[in-house]
């Protein structure tokens, strides 16, 4: 057994740190905070230029053929820094689907643009009446010659305002079982009939509602077979299983440790010597270690040639629930000052605890709710019967 990630991972981690020092500037942070948009065009371009977008991709696609643990080491640094990576991740995920399931023409046209940072692709799965039950999607696509006509509405189309395409899950056959009548398309967003309506969230992050009225898409942008959309979704979601975890918690913990070392109580005693403070910091540090290890296990499994399944659900469930607990606990630890938000000079570390408390709310939902992850763990991991 060996818990070191390895020399390749260490090297790429160092490279990522240097890259972040140079490119995740105060300007980028300020733009993220003022707009709530966790995508930055300059930063995204810089990632491409420095080989920090898709190092895990094969060399012939412009990647570096790095293994899953190497890519994870880089991704851990980006997550711990709080850098804007979300649109990059969705773009690469869809590019990966196309690489495995797309036509030769799609591979030639879309994938190089995605890896060159020339296009951004966002996800259009969730609908007002279909969240966790994603296969209940009702957005309709109807064939019209060589084109399809799309009508419907998607929720949480994050970064749609920044994007060129939405990877859209549509219903093409309402007559069959819900999983069997779905088809996916790569729909150009900058065209008449697409309406993007901003939605602001408790954490300050901006997402969108997107509306599609008689939107036309060429059949050449259909991904996979007609009514074969569920297969595409299944493949797409497996690419999401080796994500870094614990980075947001680690950033929070570092700020709280610094606070403990530099603050005193009314009697002038350092907070770092308060047993209650120590216990809270220690518990969070232990949980973060576990979050990190569960995520690294997924990459290790992937390196061994198996797709992580239950391992991915455990990593996501544990890390996001832990962030939810920790941010609440640290707000309590800070006392009344815990509610001071960014912008108040007296807020501890720009109000990171109260920000994390709000940010954590999204993490236990997107990418599959905690309840969905528990179902997967119970059924596929523990072998318990379905409801």
């Amino acid at each position, binding site marked *: *057994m060996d818990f*070191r990630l390895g020399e390749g991972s260490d090297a790429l981690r160092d490279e990522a740190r240097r890259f972040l020092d140079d490119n995740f500037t105060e300007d980028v942070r300020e733009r993220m905070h003022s707009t709530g948009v966790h995508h930055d065009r300059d930063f995204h371009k810089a990632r491409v230029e420095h080989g920090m977008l898709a190092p895990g991709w094969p060399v012939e696609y412009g990647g570096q053929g790095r293994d899953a643990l190497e890519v994870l080491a880089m991704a851990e640094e980006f997550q711990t820094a709080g850098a804007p990576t979300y649109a990059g991740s969705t773009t690469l995920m869809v590019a990966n689907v196309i690489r495995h399931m797309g036509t030769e023409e799609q591979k030639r046209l879309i994938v190089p643009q995605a890896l060159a940072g020339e296009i951004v692709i966002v996800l259009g799965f969730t609908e007002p009446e279909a969240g966790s039950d994603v296969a209940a999607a009702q957005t309709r696509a109807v064939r019209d010659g060589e084109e399809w006509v799309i009508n419907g509405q998607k929720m949480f189309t994050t970064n749609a305002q920044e994007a060129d395409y939405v990877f859209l899950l549509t219903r093409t056959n309402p007559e069959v079982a819900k999983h069997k009548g779905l088809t996916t398309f790569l729909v150009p967003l900058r065209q008449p009939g697409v309406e993007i309506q901003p939605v602001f969230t408790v954490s300050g992050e901006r997402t969108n509602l997107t509306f599609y009225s008689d939107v036309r898409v060429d059949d050449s942008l259909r991904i996979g077979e007609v009514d074969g959309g569920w297969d595409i979704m299944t493949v797409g979601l497996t690419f999401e299983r080796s994500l870094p975890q614990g980075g947001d918690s680690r950033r929070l913990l570092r700020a709280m440790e610094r606070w403990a070392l*530099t603050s005193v109580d009314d009697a002038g005693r350092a907070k770092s010597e308060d047993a209650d403070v120590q216990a809270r910091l*220690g518990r969070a540090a232990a949980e973060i270690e*576990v979050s990190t290890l569960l995520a690294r296990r997924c990459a290790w499994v992937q390196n061994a040639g198996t797709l992580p399944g239950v391992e991915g659900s*455990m990593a996501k469930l544990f890390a996001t629930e832990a962030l939810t607990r920790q941010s609440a606990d640290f707000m309590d630890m800070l006392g009344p000052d815990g509610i001071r938000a960014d912008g108040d000079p007296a807020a501890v570390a720009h109000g990171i605890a109260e920000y994390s408390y709000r940010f954590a709310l999204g993490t236990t939902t997107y990418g599959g709710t905690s309840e969905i992850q528990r179902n997967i763990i119970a059924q596929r991991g523990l072998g*318990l019967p379905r*409801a």
Partner: protein
Amino acid sequence: MDLNPSEEQQQLIDAFSAFYAKECPVERVRAAESSGHDADLWASLRTMGALEMAIDEQSGGWDASLLDMALVAEQHGSYLAPAPLIEAQVAARLLARTGGHAAAAALGRALGGDHLVTIALHPPRGGVLALVPGGSAADEVIFFDQGQLKCVAIVDRARPVPNTGSMPLADIAVDSGSVVLESGEPAEQLFESARDDWLVLMANALVGVGSRSIELGVDYAKERHAFGVPIGSFQAVAHGLADAATAVEGGKLIAREAAWAADDEAARARELACFSCGFCAEAAREASYRSLHYHGGYGFMLEFDIQLYFRRARAWPAVFGEPTHMYARGAVERLSAVGSGL
């Protein structure tokens, strides 16, 4: 990164797993409930080389890594074996590291035969070592007191303290006859390292307790029907088990990492020892509580095995302290590292 045990480690796991399956069925655990100690089982473990593995070759041992010992501890925990394996191993390892005539003599006694040497995890208060693990079965105890590492013979077998986990605990008076093994800074370092070893091995034993608790709960939830379906199909049951299983799996990773770090990442060894034991203690508590509860009224009956795990999960690590105390000890370690960088 490689999360698989080596071939040799797998053989070790297989050997001890087969040993416990044969020598320590749950009837044997129940039979030892009153004293918490099964002398025959301990003798068999000695024959397996349980103490020799804990010490270096020069001292007459196998020089196993803490990770090797941790893999055995996990098996020990999953069978709730009523034998003071962890304390005796930690004591022997400490004696071998201490060196000097007095420690060598004590190690000789520990390895010699029917003479159990254990360790007290806290200094005496008012001349009494409280809740010494393995204390009611021990012939000798190592302890730390006012800058000195000492050992003392237990002349008359100490009276067992009745306790939640049916463990062989004793309060041991150390007012006279103790022998100094080491003094000053080295003594304190040796003692703290021994405590770290104990925390790591306990963390791994608790992984065994937690894993077996999940198995018992899952098996029951598949078999037991209510309202015409297996109760494991209800999310109220399934989700509690999924959460507990996730924590135990995570606990297994951090417990093994902590054991690995003892040899391979010394700078983080202490914090990981503390964090792993605190985390695994809570994970084992939760897993055994959930499983017991999903047994319904049966879980409350002595006849069902889950109660054995539920009681042990709570009591076993408590002789060191509550999880919060372990987290705080680990945080102090981290804060001193972070503080020196500020």
